[in-house]
């Protein structure tokens, strides 16, 4: 075998603390090495040209480059060796920048370590074999989970791009949190007026199949060939017959059901259409509260329905769909404000969440856009907003910033002054984070045009000032906090306190991540493949992220990421066939004893047991699903599974190379 070695200086990044010339000189003594040199920038055009030229001139069989991390430039160099006629896997990289030069200043020992790493790479390369990628067919359909604004945007973009879309939403209507908002910042647009047309488009698009009241139960398969099981929960109403006339809602006798669309500030019926613009506008029964299901009595809706659509015996349905890619757009939930006992949320009726306040501001909300205190229905004259409730607070395990609360708080303060001109609005804040187009100007407007009083400091306690015997209610709430700019305590008697609750991962997100075999962070937000350069991909090929399921995001950011995810899916599925990575597990059938341990340990479901004609079982790798993690190969008790390009012989060759040099240096 004829091997060439190139040691990169990376400007001064490596050369400052590693003697690259000495490393190259030493490499010439390694077995099979016929050429070794050093270069200022191996990744530069001249550097790549030198590699290609040397391969041709010296008829090399493989190349080692000692430079940066393979995450940076492995692809670059593989392309270079391929251009010179070698197989792209006849190439190895020794990381002497991140693993050597950047972590120590000791030039002598750095040079020794770099030499060791090059020796290991050479030994590994001696066992490299050419590998070829295989190609397979793809389904040109996409599954989108969650139909908030991100899911809606992704669905429309994909559908317009010519893909068939399966859109799954667990609630009765699409629209998500945006459909609950009154106005949006910084333009004070009517939220549902902006979103409504997109919702209608989703409902009518010929390429979009919409499943509401549905959840993903299981996802199997691999990029291009996913199979998904969807549970369509029974609405107990035949939606092909229901016209959404609402006659059932008027007659339903259980009228005390907390209205989820209105964040529980009013009640609704057991059979509902969540809001006027709902898509699909169909009625559904909540069996946990319906008298028919809880007590076995009633049946009014069935009697009054003019379309005869109510069916109490309707069952859940499980559908199977085949898709080529998946976009998750499951959004966020809001922090449970009752966890911060000092604010009295959940104990005092006039302490409400920002989304409850939003429903109150909304013309289609339960108060028809009039701000009313929950305790007595009076119009509040002093409204205090408390920012960062469940954001940037380590004591409730929410150390992150929810990113949008500063802005919606300013919006709600402005709207308060719009609705009740003689009202006072106070905002207790930690810092104002208004990084977005027109955002800082919007905050200024709140402060200057609308005279919203911003107080920099945290609130220590909210307590009722007075009340009838037995418990305070009805009176005002005293908000006590610090003004850190004045260095003083402040107390404000408020009629209404609005808690700017932060974002949490949607409930059930970690369970969904497990089903999809993607990762999530400690707080349940889905993990992107790279925080800077692969923000919409996951580490599972073919599954993409859109919106606040990845991290708290406002509407523009969610929409942008949704379109980005749609773009990724369209690019992926624009090809009729996909190529698989050949660095995957391979089973030596002769050695396999069919114990099935590998099948159980594989985190990607890439191994299945195949039955031979004699009835015995052998492991088989689904090449398109295998991610090349290597867990199976260390699990296998008889070493029957080898990871291509990282075989036992290769790893042992590296270890031997390292130990041999260690022997030599200690002996001398």
């Amino acid at each position, binding site marked *: 075998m004829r091997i060439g070695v190139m040691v990169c200086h990376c400007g001064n990044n490596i050369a400052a603390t590693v003697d690259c010339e000495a490393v190259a000189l030493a490499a010439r003594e390694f077995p099979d090495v016929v050429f070794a040199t050093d270069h200022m920038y191996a990744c530069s055009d001249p550097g790549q040209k030198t590699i290609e030229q040397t391969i041709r001139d010296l008829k090399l069989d493989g190349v080692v480059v000692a430079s940066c991390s393979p995450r940076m430039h492995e692809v670059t160099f593989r392309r270079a060796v391929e251009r010179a006629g070698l197989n792209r896997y006849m190439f190895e990289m020794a990381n002497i920048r991140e693993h050597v030069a950047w972590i120590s200043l000791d030039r002598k020992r750095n040079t020794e370590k770099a030499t060791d790493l090059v020796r290991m790479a050479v030994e590994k390369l001696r066992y490299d074999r050419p590998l070829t990628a295989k190609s397979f067919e793809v389904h040109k359909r996409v599954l989108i989970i969650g139909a908030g604004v991100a899911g809606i945007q992704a669905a429309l973009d994909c559908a317009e791009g010519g893909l068939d879309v399966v859109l799954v939403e667990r609630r009765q209507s699409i629209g998500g949190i945006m459909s609950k908002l009154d106005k949006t910042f910084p333009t004070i647009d009517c939220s549902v007026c902006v979103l409504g047309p997109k919702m209608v488009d989703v409902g009518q698009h010929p390429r979009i199949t919409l499943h509401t009241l549905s959840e993903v139960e299981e996802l199997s398969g691999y990029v291009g060939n996913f199979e998904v099981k969807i549970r369509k929960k029974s609405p107990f109403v035949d939606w092909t017959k229901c016209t959404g006339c609402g006659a059932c809602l008027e007659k339903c006798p259980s009228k005390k059901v907390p209205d989820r669309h209105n964040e529980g500030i009013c009640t609704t019926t057991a059979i509902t259409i969540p809001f006027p613009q709902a898509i699909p506008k169909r009625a559904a029964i909540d069996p946990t509260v319906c008298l028919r299901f809880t007590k076995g009595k009633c049946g009014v809706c069935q009697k009054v329905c003019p379309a005869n659509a109510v069916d109490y015996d309707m069952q859940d349905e499980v559908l199977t769909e085949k898709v080529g890619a998946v976009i998750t757009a499951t959004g966020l939930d809001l922090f449970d404000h009752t966890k911060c006992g000092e604010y*009295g949320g959940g104990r005092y009726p006039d302490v409400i969440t920002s989304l409850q306040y939003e429903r109150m501001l909304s013309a289609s909300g339960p108060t028809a856009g009039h701000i009313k205190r929950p305790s007595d229905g009076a119009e509040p004259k002093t409204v205090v907003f408390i920012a960062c409730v469940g954001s940037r607070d380590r004591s409730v395990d929410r150390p992150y910033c929810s990113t949008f609360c500063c802005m919606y708080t300013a919006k709600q303060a402005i709207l308060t002054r719009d609705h009740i001109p003689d009202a006072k609005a106070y905002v207790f804040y930690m810092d104002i984070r208004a990084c977005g187009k027109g955002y800082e100007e919007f905050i200024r407007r709140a402060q200057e045009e609308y005279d919203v009083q911003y107080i920099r400091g945290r609130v220590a*306690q909210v307590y009722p000032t007075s009340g009838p015997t037995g418990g305070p209610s009805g009176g005002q709430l005293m908000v006590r906090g610090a003004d850190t700019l004045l260095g003083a305590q402040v107390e404000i008697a408020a009629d209404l306190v609005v808690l700017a609750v932060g974002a949490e991962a949607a409930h059930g997100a970690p369970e969904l991540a497990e089903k999809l075999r993607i990762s999530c962070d400690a707080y349940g937000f889905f993990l992107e493949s790279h925080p800077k350069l692969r923000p919409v991909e996951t580490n599972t090929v073919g599954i993409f992220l859109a919106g606040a399921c990845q991290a708290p995001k406002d509407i523009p950011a969610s929409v942008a990421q949704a379109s980005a995810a749609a773009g990724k899916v369209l690019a992926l599925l624009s090809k009729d066939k996909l190529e698989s990575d050949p660095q995957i597990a391979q089973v030596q059938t002769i050695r396999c004893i069919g114990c099935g341990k590998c099948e159980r340990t594989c985190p990607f479901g890439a191994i299945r047991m195949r039955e031979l004609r004699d009835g015995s079982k052998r492991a088989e790798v689904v090449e398109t699903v295998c991610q090349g993690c290597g867990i199976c190969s260390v699990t296998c008790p008889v070493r029957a599974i080898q990871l291509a390009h990282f075989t036992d012989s290769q790893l042992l060759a590296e270890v031997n190379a390292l130990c041999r040099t260690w022997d030599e240096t200690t002996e001398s």
Partner: protein
Amino acid sequence: MSGSATTSLTLGYYPGCSQTGTAAEYDRSSRACCQALGVRLVDVPDWTCCGSTPAHTVDHVLAGALAARNLLQAERIGHDRVATPCPSCLAALRTASQHLAQDVQPDSNAPEDMAPSFRAEVERLLDRPAPLRASAVSVLQVLAEDVGIAAIASAVKKPLTGLRVAPYYGCLLNRPPGLMAFDDPENPTALDRVLTACGATVVDFPFKTECCGAAFGMPRLDIMQRLSARILDMADTCGADVIVVACPLCQMNLDLRRGQVNDHSRRQGGREFSLPAPYFTQLLGLALGLAEADLGLDKLVLDLRPVLEAARAREQKRALEVAAVAAAKTAAKAAAKADGTSGQKPGKPGSEPGPKEDAPCA
């Protein structure tokens, strides 16, 4: 937790200095309640001051050693858990356990791996090995969690029916949460639950953990007066008959210094407050049917007995009214039935008059 009052539980007991003087009734009633509920308290032999506030403001190692000495004494007689009624002692003892476990001096600026060993420094002062496992727990936590609310409720002999109580935890009993690891730091409920089990009516009291002014009673009386007046004002506003306390220093400010607080309130154009401020263990003891002498009721500056009498009288009156209303209802129903016009569900029997057999606590 079995519902009987014979829970067999033995703990070390660290009274703390206040409990030998100004708060002797807290000590006495804590012991009496524990005994009645089957908790055996074994005094830490030859206990000394926990270090209190002065020690840790001067030197963390010294504070650690003073507290650790007592934990060590408890460990020596085989008790790893030490109950104490005083939240301030509790904080000192728990801080020492925590610092010994973490083994790093809290005020050291040195990087973690170079900081001097806290344990070694404490051992140098103690001249013997520092305690390894022992930690402290509040009497309230022992009662609420080890004995259990259900067991307390079933052991109650003379329920405090009709007595409206404001539960006042003070700022230290649950906080800092990482150190105390008991109940909610902002809206604690353990005391509420204990008092409810005693039959009392717990009012929704927003100032459960507000500062009473603590030791400011000495250097800046005005601060303590203002803060304690706020707390009493809120308890009064909430309609409480008594404010129930769990800390000797809070109790001193709210009870012994009541005259000073009222002076201040009067000067500010406010009202004077007459509601008593007993320890929770005193009310619990009364509910358990213990003798007044065992609970040190006579040590309270503001007498508790008239309030108890008034609550009892009020409750009896209310019960009679309820009974009268119920009787009237059943009479009306019977009359209606006699008319033959009613065939509806049978009415619920009116609640019986209150526990009349309860003799006044004496």
